[in-house]
Structures are given as C-alpha cells and as structure tokens.
C-alpha cells in the first residue's frame, strides 16, 4: 500500500508572546503531520494556543522556531508563510466575509486574489453545493450566521486547497446550526479529498475527525 501524501507538516513550532511577567510560551516544539484527505481535530482550553497554532500552520504568523510547510501541487512541500492563499484554505469563527460583497462575490474574491479571475461558474457551483444556490446575490448582512459560515467554507475551497484550516467554525452558531455546518464541512472536504485541520472546543465535533489532538501547556498530544 503506498504511503499517504503529506499535505501539511509542522516541525518544532515554538511561539511565545511578550507579557508583563516576561515571555509567555504558548507553543513548545509542536510537531504535526496531516495526510491528504485526512481530518484532524485540535482541542484545548481557551488561551491554550489553538488559534496561534493554526495561524502558524497557515502562514499567518511567524514562529519563533520550527517550520510549517504545506503541499502545493507541482511544487511539493513549501513554506506556509511565503505561499499564502495558494494551498491552504481558512475558515474563521467570525466568518470574516467582506460586508460589501454578496455571497458569490465573496467566494469569487478568493479566486481573484489568487490570480483566477474567471472562476464565477465554479464559485456558483460551490455555493450551490453548500446549499446557497438561491442566496448568491445576498449580502452577508442579509444571511444568517450558518449561511455566512457556508459562504466562508465555499470561499475556503474555491482555490482547491490541499488542506483546510478551520478555527472554531461553529463557535458563533447555535447547536443545531453548528451541527449542520459541521456536517457540511466534513462532507465537502471528504468529497473533494481536502484535508481538514479543525480547531474546536467540542468533543462531539472533534470525535467525527480521523485523528484527535489536544493542545495543553504548549504541547500537542493525542487525545
């Protein structure tokens, strides 16, 4: 059986922040490998560094030590920091949609920023696949929280990333909507063969992923 392809690799990630009491170590040598199509969850208490870890994995922040790489088709594993928007998709807790753009434009924006201006049909198909075919022209203010998060999922997938990083995507949603969004998220990544790294507080949602990790005291360990 062939070895599964690594789509995300983090080795020795360290990060600390300045505090009145001196440097506060949030991550102490974190290692993580995610394979193609695999879903991974990271749980931890508030302030444990889950979001920081996700930002380092996606290249949104710089680690004090260690490195994070992800798979860019045709180029192999590349540094996350220097390849923003290319092989990783983000889903944020607060959706982070552009309030002045409608659902279709929000999804299309991600493609345009990545240098793919003619992706309207693909964006529409993605929105239809997350159940928003009839809400394409609606502004975020005209959508419910669950609908906004579905737009955000479609936006994260438009550039066909090899891995999707989701930072508490149900954190702002009620239980039923959160469950629906989680079902949808797991479904679409499975359909597209995209790996998922899910940061969540919920044991229930974490249990639905292939592998579960817990971040505590700056150390990542199997749940």
């Amino acid at each position, binding site marked *: 059986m062939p070895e599964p392809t690594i789509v995300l690799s983090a080795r020795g990630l360290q990060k600390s922040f300045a505090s009145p009491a001196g440097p506060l170590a949030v991550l102490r040598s974190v290692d993580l490998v995610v394979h193609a199509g695999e879903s991974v969850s990271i749980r931890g208490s508030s302030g444990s560094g889950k979001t*920081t870890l996700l930002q380092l994995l996606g290249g949104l922040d710089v680690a004090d030590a260690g490195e994070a790489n992800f798979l860019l088709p045709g180029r192999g594993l590349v540094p996350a920091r220097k390849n923003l*928007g*290319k092989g990783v998709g983000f889903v944020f807790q607060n959706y*982070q949609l*552009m309030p002045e753009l409608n659902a279709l434009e929000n999804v299309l924006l991600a493609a345009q920023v990545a240098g793919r*201006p003619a992706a309207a049909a693909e964006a529409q198909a993605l929105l239809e696949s997350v159940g928003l075919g009839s809400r394409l022209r609606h502004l975020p203010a005209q959508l419910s929280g669950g609908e906004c998060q579905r737009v955000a999922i479609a*936006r994260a997938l438009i550039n066909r990333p090899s891995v999707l990083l989701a930072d508490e995507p149900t954190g702002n949603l009620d239980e039923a909507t959160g469950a629906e969004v989680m079902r949808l998220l797991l479904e679409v990544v499975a359909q597209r063969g995209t790996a998922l790294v899910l940061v969540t507080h919920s044991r229930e949602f974490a249990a639905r992923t292939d592998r579960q990790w817990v971040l505590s005291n700056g150390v990542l360990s199997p749940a």
Partner: protein
Amino acid sequence: MPWFLHLALRQLFPPGKRFPAFATVSILGVGLGVAALLVVQTVMNGFGEEHRLRIRESFGDCVVVARTPIERPQDLLKALRADPAVASATPFSEGPALARQGDFSNVAYVRGIDPTDAGHPARKYVFAGGFDELDDGRVILGFGLARALRVQVGDKIEVWSPAMAERAEQGKAPLPAVFEVCALVRTGFTEVDDRAAFIPLRRFNQLWSMGDRVHGLTLRLKEPAQAYEIAARLNVGRPTLQFVPWQEIKKNFLEAIRFEKTMLFFLMFIITLVASFSIGSTLFSAVIRRSREVGVLVALGARRLDLVALFGLQGMLIGALGTSLGFLLTWLILAFREQILGTINSLFGNGDMVANVYQFSKVPLHYDASDFVVAAAFTLLVTTIAGLVPALWAAGRKPSEAMRDA
C-alpha cells in the same frame, strides 16, 4: 476589473446606500476645496485680464516715446502703419496744466488726441456726453477731475498750460484757453479718471507751442500678447525712440495682481490640504475598522501592493470624484456669481462694491485651463497620498495581528 478596484468601489459605495457617509462627506469636502480654489483663481484671473485690458485701452498696446518730442511724426506713422503687426498708430501729446472752474482748480494731465480716431479706447468709457462732440473748443474730462472742478457736461473750464507762463515772461498777457466739457470718461484707473483731460491734438500743440511735433505715438497691435517681441523688433534701427510694450507700462500694478493671485492660491491650497488631511484621518479610521478584512485578504493571498492599491485607490477615487464635483460647483458659482454677490451685498449692505471700488459692471472672469489642470493634479496627488498612508500601514501589519486587533 482588478479585484482591489472592485472592492475599493464597493467599500466606498456599499450596495443599498445612496449616500454613504464616508464617501459623501469626503467627496463633498474635496469638491468644496477645489471649488474655492478655482473660483478664487478664475475671478482673480478675470480681474487681472480686465486690468490688463484697461491698461491697453488706456495707454495703448505699445507706446512710442523719445527723449525729445518726435519731429515729423507723419513719416514714422506711415512706416509703423505699414508694419503687418500694427493695427493702428496715432500720435499724441500730453502734459500737465492747471484746470479751473470758478473757485475750483486742479492739475489736469492734458492729452492731445485725434478726435476722428474711431478706435480710440476713451470712447468705450464715456458715460456722459459724446466723444464725437470733441473739437477745438471742447474737452473730455476724467470723472474724478470733473468732480473736483464741480463741472458737468456743458459747463466750461479754463486751462492754463505751461506755455502761457512763457508768454507772460515775454510780456504778453497770458490768457487761458476756455473749453466746454463735452463728455466724461470713467476707466476705473484713478490716475486717468482723476487727471485726464482730452483735447484735439492740433489744439494741444497750439497751447503747448509744439508746432507739428508730438510727444509720442500710441500703437494698437494685432497680437497684443506679443507686444514685447513686436516692440523689440520695431525698435531695431530706431535708436532715438523707445517702444514700451503695455506690460511694462504698469508693471508694478500687474505684478501686484499676480502676487495677489499667488497668495490666494496658497491660502486655498491650505484649505484643500486640510480637506485632504481629513480624508486621510477618516480613511485611517476606516482601515483600522477593517483590520480583520485586511487580515483575511492577506490570508487569501493578497500581496502588500494589492492592499496599498485597495486603500490608495479609495483616496484617489475620492480625489477624482471630489475634483469633478469641484469643477461643477465652480461652474455653478461662477454662472450665478452676480446673484450670489447681490445677495451678499443686500445682506451686509455693502452696496455694489464691484462697481464702486473696481468700476467693473460685473464680477470679471477668466477661465485658465492650467488652473484647472493644476487643481486637479494637486488634489489627486494629495488625496492619493492621504489614502496611501493608511494603506501602507495596513499592508505592513501581520495578518494575525490585524485579525486579532479588530
């Protein structure tokens, strides 16, 4: 359309909002600044142009003088009239005299002119009587001089020329020349209106014992703007004569007008600068408010230059729309300037200042394309910089910080 331009337009003009507060106030601010700048510049240009025209009409496009009176001016007149650049050439003589009416007397600067000169500029400024009434027994007076002598059209005045003093020295009884006032002129130039008296050249030469000599020639040119070059060319081969272009006749006055315009431009420049600073600060707060969006754009792969373009373009768009609005406001204000001025005068009881102080029948205008180009370029530059400063700040932030701070 590049995504950053599309997003910049949407952020400035969000869908569903007819008058978004930030864009409306910013564009209005720039528009008012540009309009203030251009209205002042255009009116100042108008005053300058009007004064230049009056200088030319009062003194000619080019004056030919010499250290001594010009002998046999007919030959010179013939030669100058034959020059293709010269529209007309007329002789004149001038000199001070004592003008008197009853118990009132004043110094008059008497100018001998050709009464048949159909193009004589004084004709334009006659406001009482008629220029064509001028003959050997009649005089045209400046408005201020007539007032000083307490005379009106039809009254008589005595004129005492310096040549009469010579007659007295020779033991002859000096008798004043008596003239009937046939017209009054009002040019707006105090020194003309308060001093000028026009009589026929032939009569002047009799009173001043000039014979057939004249003090100078007045040239009207086909291209008055080229007076410098034409005067220099006509001067070649005529070393005893001096050709003075109209720009040199009242040089200090024209310089003062130009300086005034420059100072006003400077003041208006500061107004526009203040407006642009307010755009900068508003844009800065907008960028801070959009910190999360900036972070998301970076996460999506936006380059630093894209973010600079996104917010820099918003400043530039405000500048472009504000400048267009400013052009429109300028046109509106200037088109209704008389009504606006009338309202101001009636509110503050200043009377018709333009007519009373400047002797202009209406507020003069002169549109200068270069003023509009400079105002547009300057405004675009300043508003773009006002947008670029917060844009550079936003682009320089770490996405993780941007998303955390908002």
